[in-house]
């Protein structure tokens, strides 16, 4: 079993990326999720919770009772959200500090002996002591680390007690347990959580400790916000003055790297793998001190980090190495000395690059065909009266009285539409929303060209979903070919019936389409 622990806002965004990859079928069989974030109301966290719920709903709908979708891997990963009867269902967010608590309350400052208070004052300013911690540690890892070092006190409480039990059970089996922690090292929560958490996890199993593999995805700066915005007077007791400052990111990163180097040099290395990721041209994002307004867009580094997580889950981890990779510098006019990201630049040790590319393309193509053609088609009244006009529908559904046009069937398609329209494509769009053509994975023109007309993907570019854009080849004939591919899908392709069979049909048609149009191997 694999566990992903996301720390802070950056960690949460990577969790989103992992879920998108899992939806495309690249995830492990089972994945346990936990978020550590004192700022439970932050915008990224809310979006991640919604995405988790949507993923779970899609899996329940399209893979009822674990039913297979033929050979299709979509939504194959089973999520373990550490559910309990007494807690709200969904993604669990644990906070090392209670609601409305100031840092002084967390360390029990008012009740400390005078000498202890003096020691605390050596490390923290008065402003930091009165800082409210329920919107995160705001780039103050010292505060976060102090709070996180108390993790041991919560070991008998949920979710840690559940996690401990599960990990203990898993390490008693030969496959063991893999845990990956993701977070930034230049912010507050992530930077403060990684090491205390790894140390805590190491103490969990009493036996077979070597079967617990711990990995870390450490993010170095890949976004920034204007110094002025961060320093502007805030409304909440100087919250902005104490907020994260982009100009301190390099310093914080350097300190973090030195710290981990120190651990490595002194044989205090808790990690079986550590992935360092960042970007040399940080994206500018709107500054928000925390809360619902902190809803940063996805970035291609999120995708790379998510792939690092999956690579960690897929590998056998014989070395306790630090892993990093860099792309070639671009020589294109306008992007000189900048890095670009192409499929060949995605760093993999264990995953197969072709498989990753094909799975992502297949899923994107399935969604494009669903939103751009099949969903509106299934909404047409004619389908009930002339089912013979759609051979795939006639043979697989209508003649078996498995009508997809029932209210129940339409609700299931609406769910799939919502996943693609509300989450998957906006995520891809944000990833490609960089200066120039720095991200050369999908074709961003295909994702944006007809957005105003309500198309998430330009239907004339089904055969050109990958970079580069080839506007001259844009043709609606590609939709015709996709429709033909749907007709050619073998009836034995699987998927049971109803919504599952429908998704299988689209996915298999996408695989055929890719084999012909993109000349790639089937995933």
């Amino acid at each position, binding site marked *: 079993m694999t566990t992903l622990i996301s720390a802070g806002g950056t960690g949460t965004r990577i969790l989103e990326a992992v879920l998108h990859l899992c939806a495309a079928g690249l995830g492990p069989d089972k994945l346990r999720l936990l978020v550590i974030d004192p700022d439970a109301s932050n915008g990224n966290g809310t979006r991640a919770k919604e995405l988790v719920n949507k993923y779970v709903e899609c899996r329940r709908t399209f893979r009822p009772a674990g039913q297979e979708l033929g050979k299709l891997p979509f939504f194959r990963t089973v999520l373990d959200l550490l559910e309990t009867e007494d807690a709200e269902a969904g993604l669990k967010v644990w906070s090392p500090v209670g609601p409305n608590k100031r840092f002084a309350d967390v360390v029990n400052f008012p009740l400390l002996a005078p000498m202890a208070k003096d020691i605390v004052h050596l490390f923290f300013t008065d402003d930091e002591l009165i800082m409210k911690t329920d919107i995160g540690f705001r780039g103050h890892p010292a505060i976060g680390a102090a709070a996180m070092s108390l993790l041991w006190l919560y070991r008998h409480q949920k979710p840690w007690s559940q996690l401990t039990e599960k990990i203990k059970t898993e390490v008693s089996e030969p496959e063991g347990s893999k845990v990956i922690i993701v977070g930034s090292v230049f912010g507050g929560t992530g930077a403060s959580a990684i090491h205390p958490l790894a140390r805590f996890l190491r103490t969990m199993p009493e036996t077979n400790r070597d079967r617990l593999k711990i990995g870390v995805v450490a993010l170095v700066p890949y976004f920034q916000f204007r110094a002025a915005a961060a320093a502007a007077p805030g409304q909440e007791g100087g919250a902005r003055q104490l907020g994260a400052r982009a100009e301190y990111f390099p310093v914080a990163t350097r300190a973090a790297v030195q710290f981990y180097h120190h651990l490595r040099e002194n044989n205090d290395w808790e990690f079986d793998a550590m992935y360092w990721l960042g970007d040399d041209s940080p994206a500018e994002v709107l500054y928000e001190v925390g809360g619902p307004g902190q809803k940063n867009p996805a970035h291609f580094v999120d995708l790379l980090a998510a792939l690092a997580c999956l690579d960690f889950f897929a590998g056998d981890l014989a070395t306790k190495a630090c892993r990093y990779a860099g792309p070639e510098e671009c020589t294109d006019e306008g992007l000189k000395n900048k890095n670009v990201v192409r499929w060949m630049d995605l760093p993999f040790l264990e995953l197969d690059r072709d498989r990753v590319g094909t799975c992502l393309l297949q899923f994107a193509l399935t969604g494009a065909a669903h939103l751009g*053609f099949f969903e*509106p*088609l299934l909404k*047409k009244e*004619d389908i*009930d*009266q*002339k*089912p*013979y*006009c*759609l*051979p795939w529908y*006639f043979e697989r*559904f*209508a*003649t078996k*009285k498995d*009508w997809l*046009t*029932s*209210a129940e069937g339409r609700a299931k398609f609406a769910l799939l539409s919502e996943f693609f329209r509300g989450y998957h494509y906006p995520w891809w769009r944000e990833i490609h929303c960089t200066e120039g053509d720095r991200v050369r994975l999908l074709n961003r023109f295909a994702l944006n060209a007809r957005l105003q007309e309500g198309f998430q993907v330009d239907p004339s570019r089904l055969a050109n979903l990958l970079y580069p854009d080839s506007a001259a080849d844009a043709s*609606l*004939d590609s*939709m*015709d070919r996709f*429709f*033909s591919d749907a*007709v*050619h899908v073998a009836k034995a392709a699987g998927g049971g019936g109803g919504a599952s069979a429908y998704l299988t049909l689209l996915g298999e048609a996408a695989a055929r389409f890719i084999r012909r149009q993109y000349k790639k191997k089937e995933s």
Partner: protein
Amino acid sequence: MNRIFFWMHDPPDGNILGEDWEQYLNSMAASYILVVLLAVLATVLIYRAAAARKKIHAPPDVFAPYTPIYWLCLSVPAGIVMAMICIWTYGEKFGDQAGGLTYTATTLALWTFLGCLLLGYLGILIPGITPPKFRYRPLWPFCRKRGLRTGGK
């Protein structure tokens, strides 16, 4: 060969000799086979090209009239051609005063039309002629009542 017109064994005009009539029917049968073969071949080939050209670009295209099948209407000109051949050769063979021309020409035209229509229809059902995406469109008369959704929304 004249068995193709088995119900026309007797001449329509008493003045036409049986032997002449039989010769005439033989020549008409040869023309009939030629016309039907050419018409069916043209129908199937043009239909195939039209069906291959017909694209589905948007959902309404799926339910749009299946226009390639209209090429079966080539049976009509085939019937007319047959009627013209009949009229032309009838006068030459039996003289302008001979009766029964209208009956013979109409019958041959109709028979040619039906032959072309039936064989043309069977021709478009040959695998590979109709694109799979339109597989059931020519079979509309046989499957239009299958798979219909009844009951509430």
